[in-house]
């Protein structure tokens, strides 16, 4: 009885006495993510739950990611099964407006160019010794589209999920810092000043309804492995455009997306345990992700230059930078850069077309990669 009390008291400090350097470092990383989300509003909807999840799993002896740990349940039922990202895609579909793209269909080419970084980074990752499946997951950071990156990674390289999603979401918020320099470097002052007229072409309701169905059928028949992704986005979009299931559309874009975003963020944070995250691979993935986004921007702007040349100076190549799918950040960056060089230039809506093209582009790029992997039999 005499010795029971001190032993019991010692148990109270167990967390502190088991805190290693790695865990302590990851607690700081968690705090950094919280700081970026709260103070700088970098994707707060994700960085806040991710950051807090990272805090929780790095507390020694708490066991949230051990067998029977509560976050482990979230992770296994939501991420390993791909249910969370899939549900998010329905919400994205319900929010996305394809109007700018339908008004100006040739701009979708810029959305395709904005995906070049994915494939180039994939090759780079292979050269650095990552396995095929890992390289695919790393390349997909270049899609600049969080849910797509999470979906592909959870399917093929779940052990890299934390690094890939942290890279995808932090670079998405850094787009306004990363892109302008590349845009300036690759264009001439004359090109940057090109004024594009206002976009105005009425799109019929029928077109908007047929579009998601047609894209689903064509894209899925070409790259069947991407059907869950494309199918869910287009289902959400069809619910929005048809106008007949307002209740389902509202739940998809609000309640379902909000609940899943919370659980998804928390589960990703939960994968950031010191023993999994503090590796050289993580650092390499962060670097490769950065390269992917720089290459995407460069490819988009270069195709923009070509289109500008072919259209005899009617297209401002700056809008090519919006071909990555960071929506709507990169379209805003293009508008601001255009204004900086010519007060009469308003590129926002043209950039939005490229941006929406980029969103479709990244999903299709992911679908193609998934189908190729299946074809390789790995």
């Amino acid at each position, binding site marked *: 009885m005499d010795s029971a009390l001190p032993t019991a008291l010692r148990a109270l400090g167990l967390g502190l006495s088991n805190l290693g350097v790695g865990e302590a470092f990851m607690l700081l990383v968690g705090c950094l993510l919280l700081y970026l989300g709260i103070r700088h509003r970098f994707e707060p909807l994700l960085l806040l739950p991710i950051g807090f999840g990272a805090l929780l799993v790095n507390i020694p002896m708490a066991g949230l990611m051990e067998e029977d740990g509560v976050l482990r349940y979230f992770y296994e039922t939501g991420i390993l099964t791909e249910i969370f990202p899939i549900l998010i895609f329905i919400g994205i579909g319900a929010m996305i407006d394809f109007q700018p793209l339908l008004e100006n269909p040739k701009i979708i080419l810029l959305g395709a160019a904005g995906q070049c970084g994915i494939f180039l980074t994939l090759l780079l990752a292979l050269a650095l010794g990552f396995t095929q499946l890992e390289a695919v997951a790393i390349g997909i950071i270049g899609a600049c589209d969080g849910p797509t990156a999470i979906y592909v990674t959870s399917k093929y390289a779940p052990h890299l999920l934390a690094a890939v999603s942290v890279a995808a979401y932090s670079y998405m918020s850094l787009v306004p810092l990363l892109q302008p320099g590349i845009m300036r470097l690759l264009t001439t002052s004359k090109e940057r000043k090109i004024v594009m007229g*206002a976009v*105005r072409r009425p799109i019929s309701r029928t077109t908007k309804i047929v579009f998601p169905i047609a894209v689903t059928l064509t894209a899925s028949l070409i790259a069947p492995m991407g059907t869950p992704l494309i199918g869910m986005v287009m289902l959400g979009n069809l619910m929005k455009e048809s106008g007949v299931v307002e209740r389902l559309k509202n739940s998809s874009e609000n309640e379902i997306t909000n609940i899943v975003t919370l659980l998804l963020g928390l589960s990703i944070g939960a994968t950031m345990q010191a023993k999994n995250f503090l590796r050289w691979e993580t650092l390499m993935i962060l670097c490769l992700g950065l390269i992917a986004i720089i290459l995407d921007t460069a490819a988009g702007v270069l195709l923009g230059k070509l289109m500008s040349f072919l259209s005899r100076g009617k297209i401002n190549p700056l809008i090519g930078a919006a071909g990555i799918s960071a929506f709507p950040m990169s379209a805003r960056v293009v508008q601001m850069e255009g204004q900086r060089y010519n007060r009469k230039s*308003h590129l*926002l809506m043209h950039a939005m077309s490229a941006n929406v093209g980029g969103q479709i582009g990244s999903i299709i790029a992911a679908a193609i990669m998934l189908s190729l992997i299946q074809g390789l039999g790995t």
Partner: protein
Amino acid sequence: MATSVTAPMVGKILKLEKQVGDTVQEDEVVLVMEAMKMEIFVSAPVSGTIKNILVEPGQSVQADDLLAEIE
């Protein structure tokens, strides 16, 4: 001969920076619009005097709608 100031894109008028009778320089902001949750600064295509303003804050406009005239 009056020069038209037109809406560069679909959106909403946020605030007027100039009033009828004000003089403006080329590229000076005449009014601010909102589109895609972003402030869009609509500037004067030429220098002159504002002859007419046809919109007020809160009003929705389509691309190419006439917003103001400068003489």
